[in-house]
């Protein structure tokens, strides 16, 4: 089919958005009486819930209800998962909290501000448990189990074998292997998740509006959790959404939660997730640890691959996980013809945010392993990457190509992409710049990546996680049904409804383009409605916008529906114009007989169907449908369920991306600077070049973030550290260059328009391409992301390019994993240790040294001295109130003691322990302390940069107060002495 020259169609959506007239979830009209929700979230990564008391919250004027886990247990079921296990996932924590930010209760009030006031009034008591933050730790024999009743934190362990990998590995000329780890990150759209929910009591049904973007297979999960049938959960999606990139799949638990909150409150409830909540607890891409091996012949041909993947899925397996692992399963061999494959996938639960869809969805993790390995294979064999990749690529004549694990790569010409790259002046320039840079001794590397970009997911792929026997029992799953409705109204204008939930991809523009061209109309006469409503739209379990399915599936289905309508209209018009249907041309609002030039207005021909159906029936036959409305459902024919050998075609279409990147490491800051970037794309038929490039620029930008800036950081004791946009660093315009894009088109034989998805390619290729370039620049292989300047500095040291820096001055004793913050100091007292102990052992005197102490009482405990206190810690403008328990133990007068404390307050939990030692030198008492601490909750999430300093400050204040109370005012801290010492040395002799 042909497209008009205005394929560069500017976007229809833009005028409204540019004027600030978008309709995002927070702009939607709400019913009078709608209330607002705020969530009490766990400050602790892992704890037993001893008690929750909502009395004060409920009594706050303006608070109308508080939803608790008892309500949730009574009115809902745990969320269904893809894997059967004893893990139960209610939308509020029951008995235990398992990740920082896990919802514990919901306050519903007359405003969001009042709801947050209510949240602060909820008293709760948590008993911390050991927190697991690492996959290997999670599966060690003595690891605490996150979920009672499970036998392991590994909830799925599947092994796959295709061909004869073991035999090949035994006999190969070369064996290459690599350990990689991929970090947690997210595409953090600028608009967060929002839900407006209402419980319709009379019908025992729920109505929801949210910016959830699919897949709508999760609709059944939400309905089942709420205990209603699918038709009793009406779900609407507003026409505008501020970006999703898969992330708004995480609306799933909030839809259920807000519905239940509405039920509790007896009123509609609106919940808009704030940024803090989003970063801590919305979702994350999975972190993956992979051991990958390749059996390679003497020329560099890869004969077999072996993936051992450990997947961090967070504290709960939230549907559709472990889809991140299985989305790529069929094409684990990437762009290469590798017949033998072995895979072990272990799905691990640990105390971090549950994972889910994030742009690229499994691709970044797979390709980081595969393409790092291929790059290393080339380097080891002394060949270029392009030579090795080229040797292994699937060849043009082989398409459609069935990969070892079942992916049917539909079309492509990977060698042509290589020629495009080689011929591009930008690439040649990159090679030249490397030569020039290296002459000057600069660290300039060139990296590459080749990936196949799957699009239009086969909904059956997730069942690959089950064994064949389990699949037999649970039932066959397959397909990627897309649906669209096209109708012509009595005035001859066209309406298209699609179940696509766009978030900026320009779906309305592309559909208008397709439909207006098909019917020969101006775009002004075509309206595309993307307000989605499960009770009024045609939709399927695959509906929504994810896995880049728009171009391949949705647009194609629109074309099918529109074509059927066109055929019907043509039949009638042909009779009017006295010709055959083949001689008709639809153009400029007319249907024209191209032989005689006789014509009729499109609107007129269509009008007859509405106003004079008898005429139409007489003309085209009374057995023909007279409806000017056509709903089409389409699914690719190649999307079968996994077979008995676990072969699965995970997607309908597979694009190809080949990237080359020139990176220079700046010697002043150790940052990786992207000097040149070329990306060659084959996404089949391009529907709109402007929009296609937009998707590439966007994916590239987010991938640069993932490669160089972004990571959800956790402390070793499970506390979340990246709670603000100052900590989680989304790159700005000053950090993201513009890549050179080269297009080629190998149309897909399996999608109606030959189009494939284009939205996720660079998410998958760019991170590993950048990693390869850095490895090449500094000649170091242990690259992991994000490759931040401090990390690159460390690698430069390890690779011998920079000298090692001395370790910290202050010696630190055993650094416990679960107490990652450290503070040490020394204070000189003019009084003897005995006097100091007197203060410590007297509650009335110790009251004067505990910061902001409001009250203190002493508890008797054998051997130890225990104080209960309310302390107010002041740091700058912050005042943090803690209910604190302070323990003095190992009391050894006059030599020392251990001072530990545990505090709980609205800003989080703080715990610390340290040794305090006294030595007397020349009449002066030296008190030295070595303290270790951990801080959980809000202070940790938003203040991680300054926490250690703050702790030092608090301890310093405490010990200075101790000195004053003991009768001495002369104090000095260790570092000041050190500085004086340095200054003395600086002055000339």
């Amino acid at each position, binding site marked *: 089919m042909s497209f008009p020259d205005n394929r560069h169609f500017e976007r229809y959506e833009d005028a409204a958005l540019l004027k600030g007239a978008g309709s995002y979830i927070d702009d939607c009209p709400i019913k009078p009486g709608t209330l607002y929700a705020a969530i009490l979230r766990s400050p602790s990564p892992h704890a037993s819930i001893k008690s929750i008391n909502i009395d004060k919250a409920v009594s706050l004027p303006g608070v109308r209800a508080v939803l608790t886990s008892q309500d949730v247990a009574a009115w809902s079921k745990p969320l269904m998962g893809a894997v059967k296990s004893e893990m139960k996932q209610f939308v509020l924590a029951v008995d235990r909290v398992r990740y920082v930010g896990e919802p514990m209760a919901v306050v519903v009030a007359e405003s969001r501000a009042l709801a947050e006031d209510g949240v*602060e009034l909820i008293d709760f008591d948590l008993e911390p448990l050991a927190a697991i933050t690492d996959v290997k730790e999670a599966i060690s024999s003595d690891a605490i189990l996150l979920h009672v009743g499970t036998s392991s934190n590994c909830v799925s362990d599947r092994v796959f074998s295709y061909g004869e990998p073991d035999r090949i590995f035994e006999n190969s000329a070369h064996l290459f292997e690599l350990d990689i780890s991929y970090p947690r990150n997210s595409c953090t759209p600028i608009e967060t998740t929002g839900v407006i929910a209402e419980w319709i009591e009379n019908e025992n049904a729920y109505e929801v509006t949210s910016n959830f973007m699919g897949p709508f297979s999760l609709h059944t999960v939400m309905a089942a959790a709420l205990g209603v049938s699918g038709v009793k959960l009406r779900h609407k999606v507003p026409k505008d959404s501020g970006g999703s990139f898969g992330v708004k799949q995480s609306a799933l638990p909030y839809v259920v939660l807000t519905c239940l909150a509405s039920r509790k409150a007896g009123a509609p409830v609106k919940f808009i997730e704030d940024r803090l909540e989003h970063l801590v607890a919305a979702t994350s891409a999975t972190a993956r640890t992979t051991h990958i091996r390749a059996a390679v012949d003497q020329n560099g041909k890869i004969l077999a691959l072996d993936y051992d993947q450990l997947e961090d899925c967070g504290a709960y397996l939230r549907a559709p996980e472990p889809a991140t692992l299985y989305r790529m399963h069929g094409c684990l061999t990437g762009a290469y013809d590798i017949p033998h494959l072995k895979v072990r996938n272990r799905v691990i639960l640990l105390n971090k945010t549950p994972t889910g869809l994030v742009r690229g969805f499994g691709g970044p993790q797979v390709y980081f392993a595969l393409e790092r390995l291929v790059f290393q294979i080339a380097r080891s064999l002394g060949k270029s990457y392009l030579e090795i990749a080229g040797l292994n690529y699937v060849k043009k004549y082989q398409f459609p190509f069935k990969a070892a694990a079942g992916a049917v790569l539909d079309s492509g010409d990977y060698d042509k992409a290589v020629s495009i790259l080689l011929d591009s002046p930008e690439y040649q320039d990159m090679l030249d710049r490397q030569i020039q840079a290296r002459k000057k001794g600069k660290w300039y590397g060139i990296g590459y990546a080749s990936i196949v970009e799957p699009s239009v997911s086969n909904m059956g792929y997730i069942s690959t996680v089950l064994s064949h026997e389990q699949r037999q029992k649970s039932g066959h799953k397959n397909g990627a049904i897309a649906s669209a409705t096209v109708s012509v109204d009595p005035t001859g204008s066209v309406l298209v409804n699609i179940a696509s939930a766009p978030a900026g991809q320009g779906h309305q523009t592309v559909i208008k383009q397709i439909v207006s061209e098909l019917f020969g109309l101006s775009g002004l006469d075509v309206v595309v409605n993307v307000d989605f409503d499960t009770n009024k739209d045609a939709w399927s379990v695959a509906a929504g916008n994810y896995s880049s399915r728009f171009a391949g599936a949705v647009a194609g289905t629109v074309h099918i529906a529109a074509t059927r309508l066109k055929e019907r209209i043509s039949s009638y018009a042909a009779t009017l114009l006295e010709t055959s249907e083949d001689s008709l041309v639809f153009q400029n609002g007319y249907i024209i007989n191209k032989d005689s030039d006789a014509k009729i207005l499109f609107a007129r021909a269509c009008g007859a169907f509405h106003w004079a159906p008898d005429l139409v029936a007489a003309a085209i036959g009374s057995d023909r449908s007279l409806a000017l409305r056509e709903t089409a459902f389409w699914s690719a024919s190649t999307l079968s369920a996994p077979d008995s050998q676990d072969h699965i075609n995970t997607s309908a279409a597979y694009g190809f991306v080949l990237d080359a990147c020139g990176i220079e490491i700046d010697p002043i800051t150790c940052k990786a600077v992207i000097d040149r970037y070329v990306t060659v794309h084959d996404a089949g038929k391009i529907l709109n070049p402007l929009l296609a490039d937009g998707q590439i620029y966007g994916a590239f930008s987010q991938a640069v973030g993932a490669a160089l800036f972004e990571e959800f950081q956790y402390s070793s004791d499970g506390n979340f550290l990246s709670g603000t946009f100052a900590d989680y660093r989304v790159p700005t315009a000053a950090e993201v260059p513009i890549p050179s894009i080269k297009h080629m088109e190998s149309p897909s034989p399996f999608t109606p328009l030959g189009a494939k998805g284009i939205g996720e390619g660079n998410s998958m290729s760019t991170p590993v391409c950048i990693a390869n370039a850095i490895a090449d620049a500094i000649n170091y292989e242990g690259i992991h992301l994000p490759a931040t300047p401090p990390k690159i500095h460390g690698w430069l040291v390890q690779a011998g390019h920079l000298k090692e820096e001395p*370790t910290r001055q202050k010696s630190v004793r055993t650094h416990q994993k679960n107490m990652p913050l450290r503070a040490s100091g020394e204070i000189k007292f003019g009084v003897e240790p005995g006097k100091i102990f007197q203060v410590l052992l007297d509650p009335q005197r110790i009251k004067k040294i505990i910061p902001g102490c409001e009250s203190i009482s002493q508890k008797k405990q054998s051997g130890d001295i225990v104080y209960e206190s309310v302390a107010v810690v002041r740091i700058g403008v912050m005042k943090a109130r803690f209910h604190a328990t302070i323990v003095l133990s190992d009391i050894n007068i006059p030599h020392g003691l251990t001072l530990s404390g545990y505090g709980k307050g609205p800003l989080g939990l703080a715990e610390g322990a340290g040794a305090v030692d006294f030595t007397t030198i020349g009449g002066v008492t030296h008190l030295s302390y070595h303290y270790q601490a951990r801080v959980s909750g809000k202070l940790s999430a*938003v203040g991680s940069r300054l926490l250690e300093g703050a702790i030092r400050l608090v301890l310093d204040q405490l010990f200075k107060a101790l000195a004053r109370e003991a009768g001495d005012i002369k104090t000095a801290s260790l570092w000041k002495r050190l500085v004086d010492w340095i200054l003395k040395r600086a002055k000339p002799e």
Partner: protein
Amino acid sequence: MKSAPFEVFCPNSLDALIDLLDRYQDDARILAGGQTLIPMLAMRVASPSILIDINQVINFPKISAVNQRLEVGALIRHAELEEFLKSYPDHLLSKMVPWVAHAAIRNRGTVCGSICHADPSSEWVLALLVLDGYINLMSKKKKRRVKAKDFFLGPLQTCKLTEEVVVSVDFHMVMDGVRYGFSEYGYRHGDFAIVSAAVVKAGNTWTIGFGGVSDIPLVYELGDVDEMECKEFIEKLSHEVDVREDPSATAAYRRFLMRSQALQALSQII
């Protein structure tokens, strides 16, 4: 992220302001530019019951360069200082101002507010320490003028009492015979500095300051040394001083940056 409730007072004179501070002490917080305080209120890491909004106070000093000192009053926005400094492009403050956050923040945030906040990475805190700065405080009981090095006690901590307001700060402002250099590095444009370095050379006396390395910027004065000795000092310092480590950067990297940023700053002078 909505603040906890608070009462607001909007005094329009200094006298009214200090009266309020005296009355409410620790229950009140001053709201000037709000660019640091309001996020804290929104995150509820600070929940004062009273805010004293000083934006209507008419009799704070403005901005003036007199007798080799630059005085910056409490309500001077970063953007206003930026505008004023266009007449002094080679001064240290002029070199620092483009690094302070972003334009929209500079339009509201105040220089004095940033100084009271005492973030270890703050450019103005470093500037005060390096440029023989003073902080002019006022309370109902007294006025006092505090040397910068006595003012900053730790991260986010100053010796300002709750009943006091910073009326203005002043910096050494000499162009003749003095050369200035400044460099900082943050991961993204506009981010807080991982490490910043400021150098002032007056004759053969060098003042070198580092921000972001420790809880308070570190400042050293070297008398009668040449460029080579200065560089040696920096090298030695980078190995020996106790350096912060936090989720944004390792201690080793900060040491590396101390040297590279100091050398960058030096290169503007030499």
